[in-house]
């Protein structure tokens, strides 16, 4: 469980802003903040940033998963790809570097690198990553709901840190 521990360190504004920007993009893309969770997928009551005439939209609808055919869901696979795109952008902008081991960076590891290995935001990042990952198709139905809650909390904590770094009067 997450605790209200403060991180060991807080990175500079440039890094915080790069992280916040990536988190905002993910948040906007998935419209997090308005989930309905079904047994096998996550439904979203009001799709955001989606073209209603998109012919591919039906691909995202699994009628068996819920009663209301107007709802649509997004998958943890989509979120995983979005997270890796976010990490790729951090790599491309030089905010993070590739590990010598050749191991791909992970959401949790990035937070641990910048905020130290303790603190609420780091714990949340690891837990979020775990929620998204699942295991061999065995996913607890509430894992995505907790992923959303953790993501929003991470996002809020990072925004708060940026505000605290702003000089007074700005």
């Amino acid at each position, binding site marked *: 469980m997450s605790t209200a521990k403060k991180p060991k360190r807080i990175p500079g504004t440039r890094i915080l802003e790069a992280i916040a920007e990536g988190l905002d993009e993910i948040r906007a893309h998935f419209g997090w903040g308005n989930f309905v969770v079904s047994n096998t997928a996550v439904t979203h009551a009001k799709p955001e940033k989606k073209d209603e005439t998109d012919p591919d939209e039906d*691909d995202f609808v699994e009628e068996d998963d819920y009663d209301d055919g107007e709802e649509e869901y997004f998958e943890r696979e989509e979120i995983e790809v*979005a997270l890796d*795109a976010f990490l*790729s952008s951090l*790599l491309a902008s030089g905010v993070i570097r590739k590990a010598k081991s050749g191991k791909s960076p992970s959401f949790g590891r990035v937070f641990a690198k910048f905020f130290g290995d303790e603190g609420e935001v780091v714990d949340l990042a690891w837990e979020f990553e775990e929620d998204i990952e699942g295991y*061999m*198709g065995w996913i*607890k139905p509430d894992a995505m709901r907790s992923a959303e809650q953790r993501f929003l909390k991470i996002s809020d904590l990072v925004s708060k840190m940026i505000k605290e770094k702003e000089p007074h009067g700005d």
Partner: protein
Amino acid sequence: METDRLVRFAIRKMTEHEVAAECLEEADEIVIFGSRSVGLEKSNSDLDVLCIGKKSQKLKTRFLDLTVMPLEETFQAKWLGNELASHIAKYGTWIKGDPKWVDSVQIGAEAVDAKRRRIAAFLRALPSRWDNLDEIFRQKYATKLRRETQRLLLLERGVAVPPTRILDESWDVFTIPEQEIERSLVGTMGSDEIRFRRDLLDRITAALAHQTTIPSPLQTLR
């Protein structure tokens, strides 16, 4: 890893964490699964453990991946038809208690559908981001999609999914042609993703070409 050594190793790792140590005391069944269960672990492999007890819990550390589930859930159709249940039933090593539910395990249509949905979801999400993904992630998804398709082909045949290392290094023991992985993936892809498709398939073909058969104890798993 022989059973006695595996048991000692598992107990040592589990006593390092409160939740896991509690399981050692209270669980009805404790099963080791994954690569360590079949002696195909690498030095940095984690220990996959299923504890059947009274509650539902999860613990993941660098060296331990523990799932705790209540006994009553193991008799539910959702679990018995599940990919993980079939994997554990076939490849698991019980270090405490007797397997009470394994005879009822049968891979269900839901497990196959779930795997198809997972692959399709990746194939929907990846093309538009492929060029923006770092090389390290492109390789990650090529590996992931290859493995998931291998798992799908097995599940479709009602065969329990083996530890990942067998998928990576000894796919031939299942006598399913490598070309079938590509056929299955291509069938799930859209037609307007040619560049993505070519890159992905090239990577998968290269990985399959480098497979080397794992010697015994794999042979006993045929």
